């Protein structure tokens, strides 16, 4: 399996994803510039965290108009795995690949810390190695992570089991329904505010994110798509 790590101007967790995939999981990965228009040869696409376009206007808004975006949309429509963390999640919502939006944290402040999460759906290609309802801990680092969608959209997300990760204990940003990560209807696009790529090595104190990458890389994808 070969993974594209897309780099936008201002992305800054690109190396973290790349190293998690390559030096930790021994997978194949390549950086792909926002100026390219083609993802052929890749089996999965990952959008890293950071501050694309300085978070100017709205987080992720300007990155949506990059040359690479149509290729990412086509990739997602073809049912192949697309993953975005933090700014990557914001880009996926701004691009309409995931419903809803991420707004300023209720505290109005950037927050970097480790939070508790519950795995709400382990029937996805990204979470198949977690237990259903398992509690894990992952780092967050964002100022705009408060998930918002209107009532109808929220009801639909819940009904279709699209909420994959939910904050437990404390809600660090004011997200509705404590939502930390969601998929699209088909389950092949996952966006989440927490950073699993920061939790893949014991040396750095946490390995709870490792199974997300392993789930995706096992290749023998359980047919998680409904």
């Amino acid at each position, binding site marked *: 399996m070969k993974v594209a790590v897309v780099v936008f*101007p*201002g*992305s*800054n*967790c690109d*190396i*973290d994803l790349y*190293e*998690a995939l390559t*030096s930790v999981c021994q997978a194949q990965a390549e950086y792909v510039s926002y100026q390219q228009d083609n993802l052929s040869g890749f089996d999965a696409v990952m959008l890293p*965290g*950071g*501050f694309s*376009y*300085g*978070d*100017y206007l709205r987080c992720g808004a300007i990155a949506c108009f990059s040359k690479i975006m149509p290729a990412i949309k086509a990739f997602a429509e073809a049912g192949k795995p697309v993953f975005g963390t933090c700014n990557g999640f914001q880009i996926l919502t701004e691009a309409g690949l995931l419903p809803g939006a991420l707004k300023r944290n209720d505290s109005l*402040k*950037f*927050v*970097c*810390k480790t939070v508790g999460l519950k795995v709400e759906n382990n029937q996805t290609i990204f979470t198949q190695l977690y237990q259903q309802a398992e509690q894990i801990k992952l*780092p967050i*680092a964002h*100022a705009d992570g408060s998930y918002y969608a209107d009532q109808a959209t929220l009801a639909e997300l819940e009904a279709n089991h699209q909420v994959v990760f939910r904050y437990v204990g404390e809600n660090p940003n004011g997200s509705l329904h404590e939502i930390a990560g969601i998929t699209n209807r088909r389950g092949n696009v996952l966006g989440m505010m927490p*950073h699993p*790529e*920061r939790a893949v*090595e014991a*040396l*750095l*104190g946490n390995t709870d994110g490792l199974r997300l990458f392993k789930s995706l890389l096992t290749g023998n994808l359980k047919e998680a798509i409904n």
Partner: protein
Amino acid sequence: MVTEMTPEEIKIKKPYLNWGLSEKEYNYICQKLLKRLPNYTETGLFAVMWSEHCSYKMSKALLRKFPSQGVRVLQGPGEGAGILDIGDNQAVVFKAESHNHPSAVEPYQGAATGVGGIIRDIFSMGARPIALLDSLHFGEINRPRIKYLINEVVAGIGDYGNCMGIPTVGGEITFDSCYAGNPLVNAMCVGLMDQNDMQKGRAQGIGNAVIYVGAKTGRDGIHGATFASADFADERETQRSAVQVGDPFMEKLLMEACLELTHQHQDWLVGIQDMGAAGLVSSSCEMASKAQSGMELQLDLVPQREPNMSAYEIMLSESQERMLLCVKTGFEEEVKQLFKDYGLEAVVIGRVTSGHQYILWQHGQKVTDIPVSSLTEDVLEEQVPEKQPQRIQTAQEPITWLAQFDVEHVFYQMLQQPTIASKKMFTQTYDSQVRTNTVVGPGSDAAVLRIRRTKKGLAMTTDGNGRLVYLDPEVGGKLAVLEAAANLVASGAEPLGITDCLNYGDPHDPEIYWELHHSIKGMAAACRALKIPVISGNVSLYNENNHQAIYPTPMVGMVGLIQNLQPRATIALKNAGDQVYLIGTTKDDYAGSELQKLLTGSISGKLQDFDLASVTALLKKMLTAVQRGLTNSVHDLSEGGLAVAAAESAFATQFGLRLEVDLSDQQLFSETPGRFLVTVPAEKTAGFTDLLGSNAQLVGQVTAQKTLELKTLTGCYQLDLLQAEKLWEEAIPCLMKSKD
């Protein structure tokens, strides 16, 4: 457009006095250096380049006292940042910088652009910035203005580093009323590089291109450098023109582009330097000066954000996110294309010339024609009188004090003192983990980062305690260096080198110059004893508000090397049953202590000197113990002494401590330097005590209860650690929220 004064008008009206140039200096420039009257632009260039901020004319002689040599030193003071060899053909690069004055005026942007500036210093050397630290000193948290300053400064630092994707991993925040009108905002950046990528800020080779890259030039911060070198009174209106706005997104692009250039196209590049204080003039003439070249610049080619900028404004602007390159003739187009790929503008604005003149053209006129060295080398070093301050002259006794106090009450109070209380409220707004190398982030003695694809790590810390330096600059200077070294040793790192920010009041005050002199003397002595060179630094003078100087506050930034990250100690207790040792001797040291501050509301007394040689020997043994993996936790004792260190070691763990010490009640809070609290697993105690000998005293065990049991010579105490931790964590949020 304003018409500029003629050279004769300048001679008569003396506008340069307002720009910080003295009449003596002006006359020297006219008579000895130019043998004519300088025009308006030239006078402005002299004023800014001869300011203390750019020329170090008053501090230079003192800074020479610092040792700056060593086997690892690849680049000492004099370039954007210092560089040290860490083996495997790699090097660590670091520097600290103050942005006190801009932050006092506009705290958010002042702090943000301070971070932006120090990052450029690191990547201009060819290094990838890997970590930021900050050292902040504010007034007591008791007024809305102070709370506003704290919130804005912390946000400015966090937002810039977060956006750049450089983790802010450590630092310090203290509070004292002397900083109320003049907060200290010091930032440090650490970079990592391959030794073959080392760059210098030089412009040489006749005909080579001088290329400007990055943001456009506006009228931002004109005379920022001289502003940083002048007394700071409440004239807000006049200072408003100095506000610069940072654009971390632009800087991120600039950094990536410059790193691509320095790592992949060294054959194109001759030199690179950032435009910091005094912008274009200082970067260009320093690059020419270091290579003993001449330079001609066409100011009409400089990208400008505003219409009708004068030569003076273009040269002195402190617009952010700009770099200056010297590129070999023939590679100009390649360089432009490289920057264009990052969405950045690169423009050839001049050439290196033969001879040694600095020539500027604007609108077809030669607006400046002076020797390069007249701006850089020929600055008159200023002799400043000095005098021991009254408070130090009046012979004082060490404070040994026997005022009665309630140990339990003081213990809980102490943990809520803002300087000791948890700073999480602030540090958690910094991304301390981005780039996934942070092994130990904020909240320990030193931050630790791993170096990918090696077993090694880098430890780093900033330390400065103005109170102690105020009581005795020389001893206080030694203590600042020692505290930093102790923090690194506690993390298992061998201290490699120092950067510093020297924050003082107006040096024309003989007492303040004396403080500067003697604290440097103390720091230098400690550096020599510990064999740690000073490889970069920064001087910030005139830190006064309405003629009230801050405490003399040298900040020491220190970086150390961990050869093997594997056996690793942190401050946190690891295991019930571990033996607890107190390392070093505890005396009655209360002058400048947190206990004195708490009980009396102020600080006073004579600081006791200490023996550098024996402390150095102790640090060596401690380092060996940590490196051999004999310790489960190590914490150096600083503010609040043993009682506070013990509590901090237990916080965020499920353990407590049972301690019995040969000390008086008040010695629980004594701040004698050169001490550690260490826990050792039972099977390693023999090895540990063999190594530390009489320096180690067994004082108790780690327990599975959340209590701190303390038995002293005079009393027995049961302290509730859960309550203690709660008070410690909530103290600052509570103060920041309260409405007075």
